[in-house]
């Protein structure tokens, strides 16, 4: 395996892990449900995406063909993350979950 591929794989792995961790920190740290929604939809999706891409590069440098499953996983995550976020936000609005005091603007009735 070339050094370049090794570096690319390692960097992608570390970046992916870091984003996944940051998404989880956001989930644990941010003050209310709606702000917590941001961590998982963006940081975690990107993090897992990066890890999956590094897996694609790894197996293709081993000469076992390009992985369609990996690409399907990524496409699936990027398609579903906004939908689950939207749906959970609707559920939270229905339950009238509390927002932090400095939130401006209004939620909608469900």
């Amino acid at each position, binding site marked *: 395996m070339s050094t370049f591929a090794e570096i690319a794989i390692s960097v992608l792995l570390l970046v992916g892990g*870091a*984003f996944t961790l*940051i998404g989880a*920190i*956001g989930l644990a*740290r*941010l*003050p*209310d449900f*709606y*702000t917590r*929604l*941001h*961590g998982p*939809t*963006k*940081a975690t*999706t*990107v*993090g897992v995406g990066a890890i999956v891409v590094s897996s694609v590069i790894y197996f293709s440098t081993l000469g076992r063909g390009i992985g*369609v*499953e990996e690409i*399907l996983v990524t496409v699936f995550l*990027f*398609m579903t*993350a*906004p*939908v689950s*976020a*939207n749906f959970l*936000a*609707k559920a939270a*609005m229905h339950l009238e979950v509390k*927002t*932090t005091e*400095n*939130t*401006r*603007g*209004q*939620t*909608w009735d469900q």
Partner: protein
Amino acid sequence: MLDRLSFPQPWLSLTLFFTWQFLSDGISGGSVVLGIILAWGIPQMTRRFWPDPPAVMRGWRAPAYALRVLWDIVVASVEVAKLILSPRQPRPMFICYPLELDHPLAISILVSTISLTPGTVGADVSDDNKLILIHSLDAEDEQEIIDTIRARYEKPLLEMFR
């Protein structure tokens, strides 16, 4: 009868066919036959609720849009990461965004894009498809966010779907 033999969503059928070829480890006689059956059968099954295609659809603009969104997703994650790791409290805001798009497919794409890009989550669509409720993680000014979304995402989508 002819209706039953057609491919109601040609693009969906093509995608399904090629995905199947890749999934089943390369092209062979068996995978082509099964791929055609699936590419015909699945869209036939689900055809009832597909919205009518928009009058004009400029599909060739899609890759440029996808690349822009992909780049923005990376930028978005870095921004959210910075905000999560910084000690200051975020200033969240709910924003009503007036839509210019009217095709359901285009609206869905816009809301998904908003959810994946800097500091915003598309929370809801009103029942007349005229407004989107956006939750912004760290907003200064409502109008600024609306203008950014309008210029960066809605305009290209308006070009694509008429």
